[in-house]
C-alpha cells in the first residue's frame, strides 16, 4: 500500500473546520462511502495516526476530500500543512455504508462533523429519493450546506440554539420526517448520544439504520484490538472493532452505553 500522497487543496469551512483535498488515485479508486483513512498528522506530540472519514471522492481527478475539525494536537498539526505538501495516509480502511439498490428512499442524519461521511454516501447511493437531515450546535458550525443540497432531494438543517434552520436537535427532525414518510434505510453519523437516540427512533418505526461509530484507534487495521465497541452477538454481547468491523454498523447491533 502506498502511504505517501499529496495535499491538493485546502478549503476553510468555518473557524475550526477545513476540507482537505488529497491527490490519491489509489484511494479515490477503491474508497467507499463510510470508509475512513488514517492520517499521520506529524507535529511534535501527535504520535499516532488520526482517523478521518472519506467525505467526497472525485474518481476522475483521482482525489478525495476529508473534513477536519481542529480539536487537539494532531488536527492542529494537520491544519498547519499546506497545499502541495506530501501527506502520509493509510486507506481506505474499514467497512462503509451498505449501498443496497432495494433501498429506494433513504435518509441521512448527521450531527456536527458527523455529516462528512454522509456526503459521499448520498453521491453514490442508488436510491431515488434522498433526504438529508443535518444538525449543528449553532449557525457558525454549519458546514457544506450547498454541497449536501446538490446531492439530495430534500435538505433540512437544525441548530441546537436555533440560530439557523430548524431550532432543536436533529433527532427531532428525524422523528418528524419518519412520521411523515416511510423510509427504507436511515444512515446516521454524529455524537454518540445523538446516534443512540436516532437509532432508537428508527427502531420504533421499524426502519433499518446504520450508524458510523468513533473510537480511539491504534493500528486502524484490526490487529491491536484497542478500538472496541459493544455489539449484540448470538444473544449475548461482544466487543467488535470500529476500524475493521466498522466504522459502520447496523444500528440494531450496536449497544450504546
Amino acid at each position: 500500500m502506498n502511504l505517501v500522497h499529496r495535499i491538493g487543496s485546502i478549503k476553510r469551512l468555518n473557524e475550526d473546520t477545513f476540507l482537505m483535498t488529497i491527490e490519491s488515485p489509489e484511494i479515490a479508486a477503491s474508497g467507499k462511502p463510510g470508509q475512513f483513512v488514517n492520517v499521520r498528522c506529524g507535529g511534535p506530540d501527535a504520535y499516532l495516526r488520526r482517523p478521518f472519514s472519506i467525505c467526497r471522492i472525485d474518481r476522475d481527478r483521482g482525489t478525495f476530500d476529508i473534513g477536519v475539525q481542529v480539536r487537539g494536537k494532531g488536527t492542529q498539526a494537520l491544519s498547519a500543512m499546506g497545499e502541495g505538501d506530501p501527506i502520509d495516509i493509510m486507506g481506505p480502511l474499514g467497512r462503509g455504508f451498505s449501498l443496497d439498490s432495494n433501498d429506494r428512499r433513504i435518509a441521512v442524519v448527521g450531527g456536527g462533523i458527523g455529516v462528512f461521511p454522509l456526503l459521499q454516501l448520498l453521491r453514490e447511493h442508488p436510491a431515488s429519493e434522498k433526504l438529508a437531515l443535518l444538525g449543528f450546535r449553532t449557525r457558525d458550525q454549519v458546514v457544506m450546506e450547498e454541497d449536501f443540497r446538490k446531492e439530495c432531494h430534500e435538505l433540512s438543517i437544525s441548530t441546537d440554539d436555533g440560530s439557523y434552520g430548524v431550532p432543536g436537535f436533529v433527532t427531532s427532525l428525524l422523528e418528524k420526517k419518519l412520521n411523515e414518510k416511510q423510509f427504507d434505510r436511515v444512515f446516521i453519523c454524529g455524537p454518540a448520544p445523538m446516534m443512540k437516540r436516532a437509532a432508537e427512533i428508527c427502531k420504533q418505526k421499524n426502519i433499518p439504520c446504520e450508524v458510523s461509530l468513533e473510537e480511539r484507534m491504534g493500528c486502524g487495521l484490526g490487529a491491536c484490538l484497542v478500538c472496541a465497541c459493544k455489539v449484540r452477538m448470538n444473544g449475548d454481547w461482544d466487543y467488535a472493532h470500529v476500524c475493521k468491523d466498522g466504522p459502520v454498523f447496523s444500528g440494531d447491533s450496536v449497544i450504546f452505553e
Partner: protein
Amino acid sequence: MMEKKVDLSVNIAGLGLKNPVIAASGTFGFGREYSAFFDLSMLGGIAVKGLTLKPRKGNPPPRIAETPAGILNSVGLQNPGVHAFIKDEIPFLRRYDTAIIANASGNTVEEYEEMVRILSDADVDAIELNLSCPNVKEGCMVFGSTASGIEQVVSRVRKSCKKPLIVKLTPNVTDISELARAAEAAGADAVSLINTLLGMAIDAKTRRPVLGNITGGLSGPAVKPIALRMVYEVSRAIKIPVIGMGGITTGTDVAEFLLAGASAVMIGTAGFVNPYAWVEAIDGLEQYMAENGFSSVSELIGGLIV
C-alpha cells in the same frame, strides 16, 4: 532492495530465525491484517496476540491513550481462545515461512500448564509465556512480579512443554534480573522483555481517566531507554538468550538492543504509526551492519563496549 551482504539469521534456544525481528504479541493480531502490506515471510517471527484457555472479551473502551512518544493500552487480552487460534489461525500463518510464537496467559498455574500442554501439540515454533500483562487482574501480575511466582509457573509448565519456552517479563519490578534468573533456573529457554510499564492518562477537561480500565500499559519510543537498560542488565545476569523490546522503531534501534545483549528483538507499537515498521527495521539493520562492518548478527549481540 540492497543485495544481502550480511547474515541476519539468529538461533534462539533451538529456534532458528531468518532475521532477529519478530512482531510483538498483541500488536500484530494473527498476522492477517499486515499480510496486506508485506509478505509475512520477511519476518523473523510472529508472536501472536496473547491467548488464554477460554475466549476473553477484554476491557471496556477506550483502550488506548496517546502519551508523549508512546501509547497506553488496556486491551486486557481480548482473544478467541487457544482452540480457535489453533483451528482458525495457524493454518493461515503456516502459509508463510516465518516462526510462529504462541503467546500464552493463564489465570492459575493449572491454566498456564494446560495452555502449554495444548500448544505443545499444536503447530507452533515456540511458546512465549506471558507473565507480565499489566491489564488483567488475574494470572500475569500475580505470578510475574516475583521470582517465586515465576519459578512456580515456569517449573510447572516446563515439564509438559515440548517447544522452546520463552518467558516474557514485566518491567514493573524492583529487579528484573532476579525474575530472569528465576525463569532460567526453572527451565526457560529464553526470556523476552519488556512488556508494558503500568501508566495512566487523565483528561483534565472531563476529570476522568482516559482509559476505561483507568490504568494501562505504556509502550513505544518513550520506554526505549528503560527497555534498553533492562535488556543490558538481564543479559549479563543469565546465560539463556534475551529477546529485547520496548519502543524499537528503526534498524539502528534494533542494533542498540543487540549491542546491549539481546539475541533478537520484537517490535510492536511502531507498527501502528508505520505498517512497514517491521520490514523497514530489518532493512535498516542490514544497512547498519553493512556500514559498520558487521557480517553477521552474532557479532553484534552483546557487543557494547563499556
